């Protein structure tokens, strides 16, 4: 008895009843995804007839053995055939076989060519999914021939030695067709997706079709949604929000960094932007409205209004408290900006500069000696040059009256410069 068998090889096996009479052929295997680490086979679905197909299901307890044929404990009369395929929560053929799944380890979307089943004490478990080329030839019935040909050319070919199997634990099933209510609740193994870093997860869900994308996105918790959404490409963000409700979009826009939200709003048609702005809370609305008024590639367009600031009379103790209170702040928390009562910019200090100071020291005295800042209409290149010259990772943006408007962090500059460089590179080709 083999320990492993392939699902493709079980499809079509003859099923015999308790008297040894032929009943039907195996069509599909229903699994219980909640059972163990590995889903356990719970029912088998059989079919008979070629023109008018009839289906029936039998519980796994009624099976004597599964070998080159399947033997049942019950007589054929006890099996009720019907024209409809019996409803099951989760079956191998319908939900995994030939479908796309996410490979959690390699963080990619793959297509399942076969499923490796583990046999233990007359139970079947789904152990691995096979995504290799060899599985395609196995299903076409050409594996022996192709193996032989490859062996003749190169006996150590990775095609023969390396199996493209993905462990069940690292396999995330996707909703079969997004627009249908998926029978399988995605949150069963939601935690699998949660183990992927948001940036990689953003890449993965961009590889899915639009409906699967929405379903997977909606299955995430709000914090993960914000982070994944932030990391998605602009055009995909646009496509995704078309599929979300207005409340969901408003939530997202409020909770992602303000500069990302601005980029998205700028890309949208104006009517839509107006409409969305109306749904936002007054605070967010005010913040975004200001950012939206600047040209996209100017300092004003690049900056974010999310920064931590204190008045001129604040001490080092106040500074540390401010940082502690804002530990989940979406923007940078390592820099504090000191302003006067009119929000006029006075200086920048960093955690490193006041952390070890006497708690009573005024923060204004720990500020950087060189006072670097840019105006709202400065160009990306100017900002980049200043950041490089002062080896700094963020820079305050002031208006003509020296009022602090926002800050630019180095990642936003990089993003803009990479786009520029990429365009130039493409032009050269």
């Amino acid at each position, binding site marked *: 008895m083999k320990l492993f068998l392939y699902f493709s090889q079980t499809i079509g096996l003859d099923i015999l009843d308790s008297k040894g009479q032929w009943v039907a052929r195996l069509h599909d295997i229903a699994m219980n995804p909640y059972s163990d680490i590995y889903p356990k086979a719970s029912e088998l679905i059989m079919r008979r007839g070629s023109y008018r197909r009839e289906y029936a299901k039998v519980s796994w307890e009624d099976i004597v053995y599964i070998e080159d044929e399947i033997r049942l404990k019950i007589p054929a009369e006890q099996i009720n055939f019907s024209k409809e395929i019996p409803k099951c929560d989760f079956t191998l053929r319908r939900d995994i076989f*030939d*479908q*796309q799944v996410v490979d959690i380890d390699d963080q990619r979307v*793959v*297509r399942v*060519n076969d499923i490796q089943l583990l046999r233990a004490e007359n139970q079947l478990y789904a152990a691995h999914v096979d*995504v290799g080329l060899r599985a*395609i030839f196995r*299903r*076409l019935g050409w594996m022996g021939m192709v193996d032989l040909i490859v062996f003749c050319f190169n006996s150590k070919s990775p095609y023969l030695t390396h199996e493209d199997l993905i462990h069940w634990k690292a396999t995330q099933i996707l909703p079969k*067709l*997004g*627009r*249908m209510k998926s029978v399988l609740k995605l949150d069963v193994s939601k935690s699998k997706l949660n183990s992927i870093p948001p940036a990689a997860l953003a890449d993965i869900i961009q590889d899915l*079709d*639009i*409906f*699967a994308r929405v379903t997977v996105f909606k299955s995430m918790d709000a914090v993960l949604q914000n982070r994944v959404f932030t990391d998605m490409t602009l055009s995909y963000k646009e*496509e995704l929000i*078309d*599929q979300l409700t207005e409340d969901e979009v408003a939530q997202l826009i409020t909770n992602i960094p303000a500069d990302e939200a601005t980029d998205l709003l700028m890309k949208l*048609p*104006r*009517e839509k932007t107006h409409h969305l702005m109306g749904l936002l809370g007054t605070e967010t609305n005010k913040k975004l409205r200001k950012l939206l008024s600047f040209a996209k590639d100017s300092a004003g367009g690049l900056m974010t209004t999310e920064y931590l600031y204190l008045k001129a009379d604040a001490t080092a103790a106040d500074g540390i408290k401010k940082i502690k209170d804002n530990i989940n702040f979406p923007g940078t928390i390592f820099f504090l900006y000191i302003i006067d009562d009119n929000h006029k910019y006075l200086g920048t200090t960093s955690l490193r500069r006041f952390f070890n100071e006497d708690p009573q020291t005024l923060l204004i005295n720990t500020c950087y000696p060189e006072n670097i800042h840019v105006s709202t209409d400065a160009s990306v290149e100017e900002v980049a040059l200043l950041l490089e010259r002062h080896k700094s990772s963020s820079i305050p943006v002031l208006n003509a009256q020296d009022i602090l408007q926002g800050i630019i962090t180095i990642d936003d500059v990089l993003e803009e410069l990479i786009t520029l460089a990429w365009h130039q590179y*493409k*032009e050269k*080709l």
Partner: protein
Amino acid sequence: MIFWQKDKADSFFKNILVFLAMLGPGIITGSVDNDAGGITTYSVAAATYGYPILWTMLPSFIALLVVQEMNMRMGACTGKGLADLIRENFGIKVTFWIFLGLLVADIGNTATEFAGVAGSMDIFGISKYVSVPLTAVAVWILVTKGNYKISERIFLLFSVCLLSYVVSAIAAKPDWHQVGLAFVHPQIQYDKNYLIMVLGIVGTTIAPWMQFYMQSAVIEKGTTMDDYKLALADVVIGCIATVAVAIFIMVACAATLHVNHVTINEAKDAALALKPFAGALASSIFAFGLFVASIFSATILPLATAFYICEAFGFNAGIDKRVEEAPQFYTLFAAILIIACVIILIPNAPLIAITLWTQDINAMLLPVVLISMQLMVNNPEIMGEHVNNKLQNAVGWSTTIILIVLTVLLMVLPAFDLFKAH
């Protein structure tokens, strides 16, 4: 006042922009459809049978519209390509045979495109041993090194070039009364060659690979059922444009070649034969149109074929991937290009036989693809509430069945000939 006006102008402009953004899949598919093979079939048919054969464009239009609408709806509903859907719903064996057929047919189709390049350049005095390899290299560079801007410009150029057939047709001074009559009173002949020609026309208008292309293009645009009306408008406009261009090609040939009893075997002959009747300019324009159409389809076809095959079998694909990231994709693309190129460059290659074989494989493949589509588009598990309604089914199935009957006839008729001969 000024703001109000600005807003209004803006929203009108925006409506057009939205439409243009949605506009695309149908029109591009339609344009690729008028490739070297199409131009050859249309011009040979019109030269042989004259204006009366124009009626075939009506059923072609309806069939094209029905099939493309289904593709668009499936793409908008599922967000998946046709290759994906076939793989997920019919399993690997069906997928494998469909795609083997598609691969062979598309190598043949690509060879036909290169034959178009060779033929049209021949008119300008450039040998095929120069033009074909150069075109292949240009296609490779365009695909691997090109960017969106260049591709877009090339596409625009191509669309403009299709208008060249309108010029050719008008220069040929056709009898418009007869053109109109051909649609109002179709005259149908009942002999074998005529039947083959009719099937050839319908078959070249609805090629199997187009269905895959159309659906992928719809998904690429991010179309969903919310955009159905705009997408439908695009499909209708695309079909009209395709058929209109085909009609102009046929009119140009019917007005000159048929009237003067010139018979031709290739699109190149049509360009050459136009010269004495419609002038050197019309002839050159016709040849140039053929050249651009061929080069455009020679780019799209191998690319699209490689893409669907990879999609169906789960390999990485796309021109945004590097060669190491998507080896299967680039291998397939290069292989199709090279094989097609070599076929054309073999001295005394049986080009007509290759064209006929390609048409046969296309014809065999088409019913399989259409039946798969019909089954899926009627499956509520795939389409939800957007399954075909009764009218769509009636038109869809009758199109499918008529095409199958015609195809079977085309396959069986040569066999009858063999019996007669012995």
